[in-house]
C-alpha cells in the first residue's frame, strides 16, 4: 500500500502528450491546405514506425508495452519528424529517421524521460547529414497534387529536382549570397526584390508562413493549458529577432529581416514544440531562458552562415548538450536561502 500523499491530481503523461498533439493540429491543417494531403501520409508513416520501433524495444527490454505505447510520447516524436522532414520525402527516409529517433536516441537511453537529446531533431540531423539532397527538396505551395506526392513518397517518381526547390530560407540565403557577388546576375538586388518570387509570401515562404502561424496558435494554447511555460518560446523568438535585427539593421541588403526569420523554417515549431520538450531541454526558469536564447543564436548563425538549410535542429542538439550544465548552474535559491 502506498504512503502519503493519498490523494493526487488527475494528471498523466498521456494527457500531456495528447494536448501537445492537439496543439499541432492547426499547423497541420494549414499544411494540408497549402501543400496538400501528403503530409498526412507522412504523419501516418512516422507514427506507425515510431510505435513499431517503440514496441519492439519495449518487448526486448521486458517493459510493459501497453503502458508505454499509450503514453503517446512516441507519436509526438513521430509527428515532429514528419513535420520537419520534407513532405515528399520517400517513405523509407521517414521510417529510418523515426526508427533512429525512437530506438537509438530514446530507447537506448532508457526510454521515456531519459534521453538527453531531442529524438526528432537528432533524427533530422542524422538524415540531413546522410541524405542532404533528399532532405532539402521542398515543393512550393500548391505545386504538387496528392497523386504526385504519393508517387514521390512511395517511390516511382524521382526526378524531383525539376519540380521542387529549396526551402524559402535556403533560397533567400543563396540569393543573398549571389547578390553579394558582383559576377552574379542577381547582383545589387534588394532583399524585397529577391523575395518577389512565387516561393515567398508576406513574411516568409508562401504557405509556410501560415503553418508557422498554426504553430504559434497551438503553442499559445499549450501555454494557456500550462503544459509549457512562456520562457522558452519568448526567449527563443526574442533572441532570434534580436540577432536578426542586429545584422539586418547593419546591412539590410545582405541579411534577411527578423520577421522573415521568425516566420520561416522551423522557428515557430522549434520555439513552441521542440525546444519545449522538457526531457531534453532545460528545466529551471533561468535555464530555460538561456537554453532558448542560445538555441536562437545558433539557429541564426547556422541559417545565415552555415551549410544547412535550417539551423533549428542543430541548434537544438547543441543546446541539448549544454542542458546538464545549464540546469546545474541555474538552480533557483531554495526557501530561506534567497538573498532578497
Amino acid at each position, binding site marked *: 500500500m502506498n504512503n502519503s500523499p493519498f490523494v493526487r491530481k488527475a494528471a498523466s503523461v498521456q494527457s500531456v502528450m495528447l494536448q501537445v498533439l492537439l496543439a499541432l493540429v492547426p499547423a497541420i491543417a494549414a499544411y494540408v491546405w497549402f501543400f496538400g494531403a501528403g503530409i498526412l501520409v507522412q504523419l501516418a508513416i512516422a507514427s506507425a514506425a515510431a510505435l513499431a520501433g517503440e514496441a519492439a524495444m519495449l518487448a526486448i527490454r521486458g*517493459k*510493459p*508495452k*501497453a*503502458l508505454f505505447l499509450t503514453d503517446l510520447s512516441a507519436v509526438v516524436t513521430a509527428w515532429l519528424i514528419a513535420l520537419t522532414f520534407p513532405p515528399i520525402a520517400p517513405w523509407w527516409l521517414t521510417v529510418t529517421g523515426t526508427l533512429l529517433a525512437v530506438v537509438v536516441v530514446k530507447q537506448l537511453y532508457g526510454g521515456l524521460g531519459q534521453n538527453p537529446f531531442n529524438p526528432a531533431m537528432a533524427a533530422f540531423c542524422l538524415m540531413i547529414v546522410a541524405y542532404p539532397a533528399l532532405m532539402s527538396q521542398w515543393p512550393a505551395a500548391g505545386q504538387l497534387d496528392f497523386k504526385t506526392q504519393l508517387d514521390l513518397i512511395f517511390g516511382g517518381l524521382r526526378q524531383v529536382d525539376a519540380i521542387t526547390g529549396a526551402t524559402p530560407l535556403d533560397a533567400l540565403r543563396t540569393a543573398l549570397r549571389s547578390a553579394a557577388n558582383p559576377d552574379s546576375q542577381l547582383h545589387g538586388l534588394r532583399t524585397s526584390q529577391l523575395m518577389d518570387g512565387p516561393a515567398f509570401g508576406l513574411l516568409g515562404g508562401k504557405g509556410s508562413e501560415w503553418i508557422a502561424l498554426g504553430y504559434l496558435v497551438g503553442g499559445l494554447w499549450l501555454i494557456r493549458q500550462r503544459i509549457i511555460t512562456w520562457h522558452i518560446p519568448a526567449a527563443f523568438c526574442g533572441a532570434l529577432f534580436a540577432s536578426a535585427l542586429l545584422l539586418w539593421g547593419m546591412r539590410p541588403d545582405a541579411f534577411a529581416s527578423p520577421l522573415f526569420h521568425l516566420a520561416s523554417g522551423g522557428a515557430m515549431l522549434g520555439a513552441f514544440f521542440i525546444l519545449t520538450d522538457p526531457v531534453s531541454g532545460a528545466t529551471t526558469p533561468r535555464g530555460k531562458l538561456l537554453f532558448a536564447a542560445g538555441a536562437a543564436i545558433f539557429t541564426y548563425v547556422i541559417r545565415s552562415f552555415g551549410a544547412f538549410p535550417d539551423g533549428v535542429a542543430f541548434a537544438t542538439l547543441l543546446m541539448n548538450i549544454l542542458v546538464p550544465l545549464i540546469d546545474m548552474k541555474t538552480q533557483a535559491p531554495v526557501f530561506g536561502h534567497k538573498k532578497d
Partner: protein
Amino acid sequence: MTGIALVLGAVLGFASIKFKVEGDPLVEKIDAILPQTQCGQCGFPGCRPYATAIADGEAEINQCPPGGEEGIRKLADLLGREFKPLSEEHGVEKPKSVAVIDEATCIGCTLCIQACPVDAIVGAAKQLHTIVAAECTGCELCLAPCPVDCITMEAITETVDTWKWRYPVVEIKAA
C-alpha cells in the same frame, strides 16, 4: 636531437625537485570511507594501514567485508578504479552486529579487553566484562581469544530511531 633531449632533461630534473610531493592526503580520504571496525579482515592491522596500502597500490579495494559492496563502490569512485565484487578470501558481508558477553559464563580473564581494538569492552581482571554496545564495531576480534567462548555476535535489531524508509517499489503492471 641530443641537444633537445638534454635541455628537456634538465627542465624535468629541475621540476622534479621544485615540485616534490610530501604527505598523502589520499590516505585520509580512503580511511574516511573505511568502516573503522579495525577488524583486520583485509589482512592489514587496522583500517588506516589498509588505507595506506590502497593508496600505495599494494592492496585491492575489495578486501573489506564490513564496508561491503557499497564501501567498494565508494572506493572505486574515489580512486577512479573499476568496481569489483568483495574478494571471498577476505570474508563475506554480514548484517551489522554487536558482540554480547554471556555474563554467566564470563570468567573475567581480560583477554577480550586486550583484543578489542576500539576499547568497547569494560571490566577488570576477575570481574565480569561488558560490551558497550554503542561502541562495538562488530569486528569479532574478541571471539577468538575468549577461553570460555562466552561472547556471541548478535545482529542489531531495528528501532524506531534507526528505522529506515524503504526504497520505493516500482510497481508496473505487466501489460
